[in-house]
């Protein structure tokens, strides 16, 4: 019985691991932290799995546990905020020197997202994953209206970072 549960869980996670990797890539800066967070999310998913009834889609349920782990987990960030700011300034100068190619623009945007707070990151992530407002609201525990307001604020924030 237990073996069967393990097998089902690992198979489902293997099929859906992209979701966890994407969360890790947003919330960590290097490979080691990425792997640490991936492992922690896996542990939390596994712990919660017996309560997963299958009335929601496995992937939907995963978004919630993965984001919750990323938001509440304690870990030392190896880069201080200051160095991150410095990095993005350097990128900005470089980006202006060269052509404003799509590639550059994207790089800037990913850097800008990395600078956001945990909650803002979660919002952007769910937006990028094409989740609707009701799902975003439910995942974070806020009302749909507030999810809308907050996301539009984050979008504005991102745009000001990109076009100062």
């Amino acid at each position, binding site marked *: 019985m237990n073996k069967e549960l*393990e097998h089902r*869980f*690992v*198979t489902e*996670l*293997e099929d859906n*691991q*992209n979701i966890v*990797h*994407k969360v890790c*890539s947003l919330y960590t800066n290097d490979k080691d932290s*990425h792997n*640490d967070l*991936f*492992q*922690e999310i*896996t*542990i*939390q*998913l*596994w*712990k*919660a799995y017996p*309560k*997963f009834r299958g009335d929601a889609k496995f992937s939907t*349920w995963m978004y*919630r*546990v993965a*984001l*919750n*782990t990323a*938001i*509440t*987990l*304690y870990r030392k960030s190896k880069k201080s905020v200051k160095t991150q700011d410095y990095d993005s300034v350097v990128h900005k100068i470089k980006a202006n020197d060269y052509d404003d190619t*799509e590639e550059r*623009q*994207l790089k800037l*945007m*990913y850097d800008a997202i990395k600078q956001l*707070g*945990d*909650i803002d990151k*979660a919002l952007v992530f769910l*937006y*990028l*994953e*094409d989740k609707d407002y009701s799902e975003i609201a*439910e*995942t*974070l*525990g*806020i*009302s749909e209206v*507030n999810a809308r*307001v907050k996301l539009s604020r984050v*979008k504005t924030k*991102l*745009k000001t970072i*990109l076009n100062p």
Partner: protein
Amino acid sequence: MDELELLKKDWQKREAHLPKLSYDQIYKMIWKKSSSIIKWIFYISILEFVFWAGINIGFNSPETMEELKAMHIHKVIMVLNIINYIIILYFIYKFYINYKKISFTDSSKKLMKTILGVKRTVTQYVWFNLIIFTTFLIINMYGVLIYGEEGKKIVEAASQDGDAFVLWAMVIGISIVFTAAILFLIWLFYKLLYGILLKRLRENYNELKKLEV
């Protein structure tokens, strides 16, 4: 085109470049120990329960009881002890219930609220113990001065010199300063400990909460 739409397109294309773990790699992971903050809070809380229970037991050894009897304060202390144990049991129960409520399948806001709730129970427990501890100290000091051998001498000597008031003022003054210093140190310790552990969580929680105003 909207920059964010551009980003969304790219984001979905990126999936191809994500790392891919094998079945066995994932299987190994589910048996690893969690290193989440919840675990830390759990261990620290257990330590706190054990630490304060230890102090209680230390203060209740048979020898201490004899001393207390000699000082005629053992009845007060016994009553305090009973109240103390009942409340400690209540705290352990509350801690357990709150801890069990932590669920990563809740919404982020609810999850953070539950975690902060567990921490609040532990803080209340610590404060409660500090108050009990201080009360014990004060009663003890009173017992020593009124009924203790050394204490009696000191009090008598002081009253002979007509300095009884000064003596009591000094005793009260010193106890207040001493207690305040201990309380401050312990408060500082917890502030630092939980400050470091829960800073991010609290910030995130407040950010979600702020939206509702």
